[in-house]
C-alpha cells in the first residue's frame, strides 16, 4: 500500500451524504463553489435504511428512502458537486484552510460543512455488538429477511422501533416490542399502525440486561428486567432489533468544535459552529426535530452561510490589500 500523502484543495468540503450533506452540496454547487462531498461509511444516511418516506413534501404517495437519496445525489452532481467514497479519519480545524483527512489523502478546505448525521444507538451491553449480524440488528429492512417464520423482539418505544416492528411483523411469526416505560414515545400514526397488527405485542417496563447466546454465536433469548419490580425474565427469540434512537457522529470533532452535553454539535446564528468557517447541518446538530426535511433545510442554510463566509473573507482580504497599498 502506498503511504504517499495526497493533498487536494477545495473551496468547500462537505462531510456526510444524507439529506443535509447533499442539499448543502446542491446549493454550494449552484453557487459555483465546486463542493467536494466525502460520503462516509453510511453513505446516503439513515434514509438508505428506511422503506416508504411519507412525510417528504411534494410526494403525496410517499417515496422510498433509497430512491429519494439517489435523486438528491444525482441532483447535486448535475450542478457540479463531486461525491467521493471514503470515511473521514481526522480533521484539523485549528487553522484555516481546514484539513480533512481520509487515510492518506488530505482535503484542504476554505470552508467546511459538517453533516455527519447520527447513527443507530446500541445497548451498551457489549454482547449486542458482538452478536451483530448474528441475530442482533439495528436495521429491520436489511436483516428482517433472515427471520422469516421466527420470533423476534424490537427494543424501543419511538418511531424507529415502531417502524421496525411493523416491517418485521410481515416476516416474523411474532414481534415483541420491549419498552422501558409504560407508554410509547412514537407518533400516534405509528402507534396505531403497530397496535393494529395481530402479531405485534408489547412488553412494558422492561429493559434488556443480557442477550444469549454468545457461545453459540447466535441469538437464542433475551434476559429482561422489570424496571418497576426488578424481577428478571427470559424471552426466547431468534432475532433482536434495536430501535432506541441515535447518537450524533461527533467523535471526529471532540476538542475542536463546541458540543452540547448530549454530544450534538452546538450551532449559532444559523449554521455556524464555534469555529469561523465551519458550518453544521442535519442530525449532527439537531436533537429536537431530526427529520429528513429539516436536515435538508439546514443543509441549505449551511451552504448559504458558507458561501457568504467565503465571499466575506474574500472581500476582507481584498480590502486589506487596498489598505496596504495606501
Amino acid at each position, binding site marked *: 500500500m502506498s503511504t504517499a500523502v495526497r493533498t487536494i484543495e477545495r473551496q468547500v468540503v462537505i462531510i456526510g451524504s444524507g439529506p443535509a450533506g447533499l442539499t448543502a452540496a446542491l446549493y454550494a454547487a449552484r453557487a459555483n463553489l465546486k463542493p467536494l462531498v466525502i460520503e462516509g461509511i453510511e453513505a446516503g444516511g439513515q434514509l438508505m435504511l428506511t422503506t416508504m418516506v411519507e412525510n417528504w413534501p411534494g410526494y403525496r404517495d410517499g417515496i422510498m428512502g433509497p430512491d429519494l437519496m439517489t435523486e438528491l445525489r444525482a441532483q447535486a452532481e448535475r450542478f457540479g458537486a463531486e461525491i467521493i467514497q471514503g470515511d473521514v479519519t481526522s480533521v484539523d480545524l485549528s487553522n484555516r484552510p481546514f484539513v480533512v483527512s481520509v487515510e492518506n489523502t488530505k482535503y484542504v478546505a476554505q470552508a467546511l460543512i459538517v453533516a455527519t448525521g447520527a447513527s443507530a444507538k446500541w445497548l451498551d451491553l457489549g454482547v449486542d455488538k458482538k452478536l451483530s*449480524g448474528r441475530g442482533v440488528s439495528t436495521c429491520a429492512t436489511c*436483516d428482517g429477511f433472515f427471520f422469516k417464520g421466527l420470533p423476534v423482539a424490537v427494543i424501543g418505544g419511538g418511531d424507529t422501533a415502531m417502524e421496525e416492528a411493523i416491517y418485521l411483523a410481515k416476516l416474523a411469526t411474532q414481534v415483541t416490542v420491549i419498552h422501558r416505560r409504560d407508554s410509547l414515545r412514537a407518533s400516534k400514526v405509528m402507534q396505531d399502525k403497530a397496535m393494529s397488527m395481530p402479531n405485534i405485542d408489547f412488553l412494558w417496563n422492561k429493559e434488556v440486561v443480557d442477550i444469549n447466546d454468545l457461545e453459540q454465536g*447466535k441469538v437464542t433469548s433475551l434476559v429482561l428486567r422489570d424496571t418497576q419490580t426488578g424481577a428478571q425474565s427470559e424471552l426466547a427469540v431468534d432475532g433482536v432489533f434495536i430501535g432506541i434512537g441515535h447518537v450524533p457522529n461527533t467523535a471526529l470533532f471532540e476538542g475542536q468544535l463546541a458540543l452540547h452535553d448530549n454530544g450534538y454539535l452546538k450551532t449559532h446564528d444559523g449554521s455556524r459552529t464555534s469555529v469561523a468557517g465551519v458550518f453544521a447541518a442535519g442530525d449532527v446538530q439537531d436533537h429536537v426535530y431530526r427529520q429528513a426535511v429539516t436536515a435538508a433545510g439546514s443543509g441549505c442554510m449551511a451552504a448559504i452561510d458558507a458561501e457568504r463566509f467565503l465571499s466575506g473573507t474574500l472581500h476582507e482580504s481584498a480590502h486589506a490589500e487596498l489598505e496596504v497599498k495606501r
Partner: protein
Amino acid sequence: MASEKVKTFTDANFTDEVKNGVVLVDFWATWCAPCRRIAPIVDQLADEFNGKLTVAKVDIDENPMTPSKFMVRGIPTLLLFKDGDLKETIVGLETKDRLTQLIAKHL
C-alpha cells in the same frame, strides 16, 4: 457497471470455489440498500487485487444454504477465506481502506 472479475457463487459450488487461495465473498440481496453501497467497493477490490484474490457474490435469496451454514444473519456480510478456512467476517458497511488492509493481511 459490475466488474467482470467478480464471480457468482451458488449453494452448489460454494465449497469447491473457496477451497483454494484467498477468496472474498459478498453476501447480498436485490432488496438490500446497504449492499448497493458496498457493491462498487467490492468491484474495485476485484480489479485492484486481480490475480491475487478471488472475489465473488452470493445472492442470499437464491442460495439460502450457504448463509445459513456460515450463520450469516445480516447483510451485507463479507467473508474472507484462505484455502477453504474462514479467516475474516465483516458485518455491515466498511471502508475500502479497511477492507484493503484486512485482505492484505492474508495474501
